[in-house]
């Protein structure tokens, strides 16, 4: 790989905007995170071998935040699902969509080896408790008792209150994504808008399911 190839690859990624530009976005983020040091040691001029690592691209912070928020949301759904078999059937499809959101967001952020256990790059949601998410200040919807330091699933209210809690969390998560659209790359902004739309539909779906007696 030549220096010119890398520059072109990065340029293509930054000029993206297609909804199908994922691989290119990954290439850009990968280059930002781990590729530039490799360029440095391969002798490309203009990149000092011992230079300070470049600042992460704005997308990295946005992605980490979005990933953490999805992890919190999944932990909340899991807490309610574990507690109530009656609610589980109605909630699993929504939880599963959050798993898809999380997978898609994670696919756009390559974390260098050795940092794989860092907060937002944890390999599984279950590997991190709800309390840990809340303590990290991520995803607190400011509703219910979650976010007030109570450990794990116990922070999620039971019964009908759990549904209201999840609705508030979905609303807050969607609003947070939409607030960050302006600083995201085109491709990531599209994904964030789509995820926010999905989360907004969850609010209505939870209401409809409760109204129909399914929750």
């Amino acid at each position, binding site marked *: 790989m030549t220096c010119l190839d890398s520059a072109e690859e990065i340029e293509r990624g930054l000029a993206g*905007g297609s909804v199908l530009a994922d691989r290119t976005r990954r290439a850009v983020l990968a280059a930002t995170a781990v590729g530039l040091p490799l360029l440095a040691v391969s002798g490309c001029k203009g990149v000092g071998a011992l230079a300070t690592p470049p600042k992460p691209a704005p997308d990295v912070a946005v992605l980490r935040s979005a990933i953490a928020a999805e992890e919190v949301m999944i932990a909340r759904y899991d807490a309610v699902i574990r507690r109530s078999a009656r609610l589980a059937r109605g909630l699993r499809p929504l939880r599963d969509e959050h798993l898809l959101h999380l*997978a898609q967001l994670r696919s756009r952020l390559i974390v260098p080896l050795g940092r794989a256990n860092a907060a937002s790059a944890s390999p599984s949601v279950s590997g991190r408790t709800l309390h840990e998410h809340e303590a990290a200040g991520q995803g607190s919807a400011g509703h219910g008792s979650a976010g007030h330091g109570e450990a794990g699933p116990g922070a999620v209210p039971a019964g009908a209150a759990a549904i209201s809690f999840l609705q508030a969390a979905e609303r807050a998560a969607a609003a947070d994504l*939409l607030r960050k659209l*302006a600083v995201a790359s*085109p491709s990531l902004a599209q994904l964030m*808008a*789509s995820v926010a739309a*999905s989360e907004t*539909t969850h609010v*209505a779906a939870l209401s409809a399911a409760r109204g129909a007696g399914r929750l």
Partner: protein
Amino acid sequence: MTGTTAPAAGAEVSALQAALAAEHAAVYGYGVVGAHLTGAALAAATSDWVAHQVARDSLEAMLRSSGTQPVAAAVAYRIPHPVRNSAGAMSLAVTLEDRVATAYLGLVALPATAIRELGARGVVAAAVRAASWRGKTVAFPGFVAGALSPARR
């Protein structure tokens, strides 16, 4: 907006025109949808029809204010599948909303914050309407079905 190069203004106009074209199609399509519905479903279709008319008018005004002639509605549109009953009508409504969501998602890729926000609002609104007609939610409204599916081995 950071991290991107500024696109030509033509990209913005093109995306707005695409959204407007989708709104035109939705306005037409809901006429077909409503013809096969009654009661609460008809009321919902009427409400959504009006929402698309409002969105259409807003997009037309935006384009005119920037000196662009808005794309006109077609005289008629080819319906993607036969609509003979309420189930078919609801399926058509889902298709219309999915296409509107995709069109607005194009606006989200543009650098201007106001345009992104307009696009995001359009995606959200279409997704909510689509979920209502579909009777269930989807993970990635606006994206072509399967575009973001996990890779299969």
